[in-house]
């Protein structure tokens, strides 16, 4: 208060930095707070010290290994998502049968590899219950735990790169070790552990890269740049959450390049910088990402559960697919399954249910599963053709044909009089009439769009020929745009006749997926079809995005596994990792170390305010308390850590899909390092002596370790009555003892 009074009077302001800085200023400064007498030492860059750093890293690694591996094989039950990542998906890789999943393949491939190493490839693990007694599940668990163990030394190294004091670097490693959630998640075979490891590796590399920016293009600089690119490629090949790390590095790079622009860096140098970053941070990760998919396609070369999500040409190349062998050239009288080229539209389908409005004739829909209601017989116009005895006649480009629904003998029909039920700009498509009636509204013209085969002769071939079906009377195109019908259409997709003459739109293109004609010999389709890796890659990504968005939670349903993003940083809803919570079960509970979670959250909320506070002080001319280089350090380290936290956390609010508490773990890692950074910052800026600083660090370490031990039974597995664990429930929402709404 004194200083303010002094300032107002405009008299001698004393020994404050504020006035001595700008004595001639015509403004009078109003300091916000009294300044402490600073003892902060000039800021220095850390140098690698083999003996100290080496031994500290070794120590951290050993302690971490103990917590991650201690009795890791104790529970032989398939826990939490191990059913997917340790049994179901590796089964598919080992059987080499094609499947569909929302996650990219790298981590699953690694897990499969470790299962292959320990167990060979001739076993299918049932995805529920217990592991078979002769199966060495501990090996795979240890394998993924390695990634978890790596987290602690990485945290130490990252802090070292961010030029924190060695005490606090060590503290960062301890925090990572002492977080119960990080620990329990790395004790099971899940994708989160590799994801976390590669995220941490990306952060560590970018921090190292930042630290070598003064010696651009040196070997060390290249090393960290390439390592950053490598980790980004690996992390995004594990789970799409890894893309947030890509975003962090991207933003960092943009800022760096902008600074070069501001600094009048010569154009040639700037271009070299730009080129190096494009190669290392865009080309390299993309190559790794695509390589992981290339391996995925190469391994999965047999027909399996995921076939239907891919185009027919892809399916035809899988061993054992129904599409491998079929008649090649379509003849009149052939029975066809027609697939729309539009992803998600499915096969042309009809069933004996009527449209509720419009013409009220029989529905024609798109249906994604194989079914005899998808069978359509291709017929000539008029009745004068015997399909069993007359000579075979090819269906050619430009022919006018009729399509008969095999099960109901109704003809594919469209008319100008009625609008399609959902896409009201289009005409309705129905199944109507009998084959022997003559009705021009049943006539469709074949227009070949593309022939992806070695044989291109204007005939329709199974799988390889893409064609349009044009309704002769109304000149519209048979179209399927993956629009869902209301419940009366069983939520199948709408088929309409599109008046837009978009000849290239996938919605208007069709292929023959299955071809049945007993009079034509079957051939091996595999040499006939051509597929490209790029088109398969893109198609698979469209499907992954679709299935990801389809994971929508039911807001009325109590689900003790799901939780909303707002609750994560405050650790409101921890998760039981087992469905049954009885006395004899080994019970694992995914709860974080509350001390670490709550304090790190506080720091994440505080950092922007702190930044604003420092900015205001500087704006008001109170800047004497920074040690040389320290202000820059505060920004450089803080922006990576806080930015990483925000980028790994905030986007979840915008996601409609189901979210779980371990989606927060990457953000937590950043928050833990930010917490360490703030402790480091506090030690530097405070008046504490070196010894007191050591005491602060020790107290922090003891505190978190004590809390870790307190919750350790839930992390390492608890047998016996859960009631034995008294006082573990720190919030009323935790369901350690009982579940309020569970039934």
């Amino acid at each position, binding site marked *: 208060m004194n200083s*303010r009074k002094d300032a*107002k009077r405009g008299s001698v302001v004393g020994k404050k930095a504020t006035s001595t800085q700008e004595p001639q*200023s015509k*403004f*009078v*400064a*109003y300091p*916000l707070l009294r300044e402490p007498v600073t003892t902060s030492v000039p800021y220095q860059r850390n140098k690698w010290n083999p003996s100290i750093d080496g031994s500290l890293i070794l120590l951290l690694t050993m302690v971490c290994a103990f917590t991650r591996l201690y009795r890791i094989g104790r529970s032989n039950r398939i826990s939490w998502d191990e059913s997917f990542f340790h049994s179901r998906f590796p089964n598919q890789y080992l059987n080499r049968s094609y499947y569909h999943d929302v996650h990219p393949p790298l981590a699953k491939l690694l897990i499969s590899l470790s299962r292959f190493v320990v167990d060979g490839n001739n076993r299918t693990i049932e995805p529920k219950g217990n592991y078979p007694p002769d199966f060495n599940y501990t090996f795979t668990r240890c394998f993924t735990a390695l990634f978890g163990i790596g987290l602690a030394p990485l945290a130490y190294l990252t802090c070292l790169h961010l030029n924190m004091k060695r005490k606090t670097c060590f503290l960062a490693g301890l925090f990572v070790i002492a977080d119960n959630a990080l620990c329990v998640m790395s004790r099971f075979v899940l994708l989160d552990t590799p994801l976390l490891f590669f995220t941490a590796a990306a952060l560590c590399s970018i921090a190292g890269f930042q630290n070598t920016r003064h010696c651009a293009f040196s070997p060390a600089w290249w090393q960290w740049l390439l390592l950053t690119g490598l980790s980004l490629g690996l992390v995004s090949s594990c789970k799409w959450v890894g893309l947030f790390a890509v975003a962090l590095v991207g933003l960092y790079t943009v800022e760096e390049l*902008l*600074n070069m*622009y*501001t*600094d*009048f860096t010569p154009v040639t140098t700037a271009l070299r910088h730009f080129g190096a970053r494009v190669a290392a941070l865009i080309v390299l990760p993309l190559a790794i990402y695509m390589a992981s998919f290339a391996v995925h396609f190469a391994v999965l070369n047999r027909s399996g559960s995921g076939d239907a999500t891919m185009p027919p040409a892809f399916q035809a190349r899988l061993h054992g697919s129904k599409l491998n062998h079929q008649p090649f050239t379509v003849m009149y009288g052939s029975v066809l399954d027609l697939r729309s080229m539009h992803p998600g539209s499915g096969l042309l389908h009809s069933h004996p249910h009527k449209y509720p409005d419009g013409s009220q004739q029989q529905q024609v829909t798109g249906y994604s599963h194989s079914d005899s209601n998808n069978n359509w017989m291709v017929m000539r116009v008029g009745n004068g053709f015997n399909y069993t005895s007359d000579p075979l006649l090819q269906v050619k480009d430009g022919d006018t044909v009729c399509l008969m629904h095999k099960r109901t003998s109704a003809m594919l029909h469209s008319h100008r009089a009625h609008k399609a039920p*959902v896409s*009201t700009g289009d005409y309705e498509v129905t199944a109507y009439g009998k084959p022997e009636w003559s009705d021009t509204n049943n006539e469709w013209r074949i227009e070949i769009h593309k022939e992806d085969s070695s044989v291109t002769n204007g005939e329709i071939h199974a799988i390889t020929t893409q064609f349009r079906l044009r309704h002769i009377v109304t000149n519209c195109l048979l179209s399927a745009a993956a629009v869902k019908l209301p*419940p009366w259409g069983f939520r199948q997709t709408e088929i309409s006749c599109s008046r837009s003459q978009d000849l290239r739109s996938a919605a208007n293109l069709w292929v023959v997926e299955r071809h049945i004609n007993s009079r034509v010999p079957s051939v091996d389709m595999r040499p006939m079809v051509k597929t490209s890796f790029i088109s398969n890659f893109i198609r698979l990504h469209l499907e992954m995005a679709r299935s990801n968005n389809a994971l929508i939670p039911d*807001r*009325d*349903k*109590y*689900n003790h596994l799901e939780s909303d993003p707002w609750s994560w940083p405050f650790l409101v809803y921890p998760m039981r990792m087992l469905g049954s919570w009885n006395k004899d079960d080994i019970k694992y509970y995914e709860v974080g170390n509350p001390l670490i979670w709550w304090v790190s959250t506080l720091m994440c909320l505080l950092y922007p305010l702190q*930044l604003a506070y*420092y*900015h*205001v002080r*500087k*704006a*008001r*001319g109170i800047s004497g308390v920074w040690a040389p280089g320290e*202000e*820059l350090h*505060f*920004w450089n380290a803080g922006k990576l850590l806080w930015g990483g936290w925000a980028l790994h956390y905030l986007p979840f609010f915008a996601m409609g899909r189901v979210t779980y508490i371990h989606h927060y773990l990457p953000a937590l890692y950043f928050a833990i390092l930010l917490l360490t950074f703030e402790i480091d910052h506090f030690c530097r800026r405070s008046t504490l002596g070196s010894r007191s600083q050591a005491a602060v660090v020790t107290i922090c370490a003891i505190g978190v370790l004590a809390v870790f031990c307190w919750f350790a039974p839930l992390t390492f597995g608890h047998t016996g009555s859960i009631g034995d664990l008294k006082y573990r429930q720190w919030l009323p929402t935790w369901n350690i003892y009982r579940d309020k*709404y*569970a*039934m």
Partner: protein
Amino acid sequence: MTTEMADTTAEGKAQQQQKQKQLPSKDISSKAIVPTSFFHAKWTCTSTDAVLLAGVLLVAVIVRCWRLSVPNQVVFDEVHFGKFAGKYINGTYFYDLHPPLAKMMFAAAGRLAGYDGVFDFKSIGLDYAAAGVPYVGMRVLPAVLGALTVPATFAAARACGYGIDTALLASLLVCFENGLVTQSRLILLDSPLVFFTVLTLTAWSMFWTKQGRPFTGEWWLWLLATGVMMGCAASSKWVGLFLFPAIGLSTVGDLWDKIADRSISPTRWLAHFMARAVGLLAVPFAVYVFWFQVHFMLLHTTGEATSMMTPEFQTTLRGGLNVSTDRDVFYGSEIRIRSSNANSGYLHSHTHNWQHDKGSGQQQITIYGHADENNLWIVEPAFNTTVDSSQGPVKVPTGTKLRLRHKTTGKFLHSHDKRPALTSDDQKFELSGYGFPGFAGDTNDDFKLEILSGDKNQVGSSDHVQAIYSRFRLFHPNLQCSVYNSRKKLPKWAFGQIEANCMRNCLPRMSTWHVEYAHYPNATTEEVAKAQYRPLSMWAKIWEYNLLMAESNESLTGDHPFAARPQHWAWLRRGTAYWGGRGHFVYQLGNPLIWWTSLAAVVLFGLVRVVLFLLDKRQIAASMGGQRRVYLSSAGFFVLAWACHYVPFFLMGRELFIHHYFPALWMAILVLAFTLDMLTARLPHVVRLSVYVVVAAAVLHVFHTFSYIT
């Protein structure tokens, strides 16, 4: 106030700094510590301005009121808003998903014009003249409000520091925008909304002209005017809420500059902060609450829409729900069970059976909104148990198994492993009425009643079931599911009633029930404790109404043929057909010239901003012929406001129409005028004026071309 370096010295300074090889922006605040966001124009209304204001108002009134009586039929959403005006006049309660102010204004206009509230605006195309409705009087209100936006535009442009020519051009553009004209000729909420939005931003621009003299009377006047108008805009339609981020962001920027300004003491800064908090948050909030209070005072009598509200709400209306029931529920009591969520009804059954594919074909259980005999259930002990009532009636404690017998049909409430009518989810089971004479029932008739919460003021309401006070769920122990209100409408064979089923793991939100009516037939004593709903306070009513509005807004999805997604608005892909008949029709379509050029102006601003950013980074001064400060601050603010009124729509799933773009359009029009000013600033005066005249003529021509459908 020295945002940019003065022109003459800028280059010299830049070179100097280049020599010094500073490394700017490497640390958190190496940039010049000066306020950056706003230029304060100083405008006071002169007599010329006054004459021009009156002039543009006159033109605007003529344009808006020209042949206002055509068409003489109900057009588009006049269906709703004309009807609501009538309800205000009659005082009958209704529910609508928009806040009340604009509708009350129409009611007032209708009252003044002599509308008696009888005509019901039932469908588009009904004839006004035949019914003797004074619709012209009601349409005068939006027309006048629409006309007033034109002089307000003039004032806003002047307040932003532009000359008379640019201000006139801006008001002309607003005056001859076909979309705005159509909208303000009809009984629709958008005209009041646009009016209040325009006035808010005009007042805010005026406020900025007083920045040099803070805390004076005029300063306060314009600050409070901004707040009041903002409150009114939000009370007309929720779109008005987008003003808050726009004005909020500019305020935050301003306060951020002020906190760095060493000539302002912390106390004074705090005063600035508090003044804005009061003027821009507290005042609008108070205005919003005030209009709701007026709304509830006007609508004092119960009406059709009452069932949308909770029973506690309904009891506050005259002629509304007036429940008085026996408080205690005993074995043998007749009870009526209500789903405790708003907009629902009673657990119901009737002598019709389930007809869906995977169902049991047993008697239907539904939720029905009206109290009748078929909602009555009798509490009976669980299967194979008895309760001894010989010592007097026995209360029903929480956690006991019981059965509910439907009074009129005698069937028990029952659930079993069959799929319900409207879902194939394996977590949900069908509820049915089951049983017949001579059949004792089975354990699938048993439900466990678990009280979730009681009333604090009613002792024992958490231990024993009390009508109204105890909120409980009905848990089916065999299937581990609870009776659940799915809020889905059943098909015609179940009379379109609401589906009830039994759901596993459901949250209390839609599975909480209470007893609304209880009666013990064999009561021996006359003196029984009574229970009734506690009427809601004003705050609770406003809160409930707003929650319901949010819910209806979210669920407003449909397939209106003229609904349009936001990506198609700005370039005017198509309009909305409002009305058609006898050879002419009304089609909501903007003035394409204005829509396209205003969008281009907004995009241009973005480009200019980026270029300037890059130039500034290299310390290259670009003063844009002295226009930089004025253009960046004024167009910058209106582009921000435009973005706040446009971008959020992309995130909305509800059904949207092109008229949702109007507030943003007005902002874009101002940006257009400012851009034209910036582009022509360095041209000779004659050339500049002729450019303006050409633009105005083109706009008038296009307006004229489309005016026959306007």
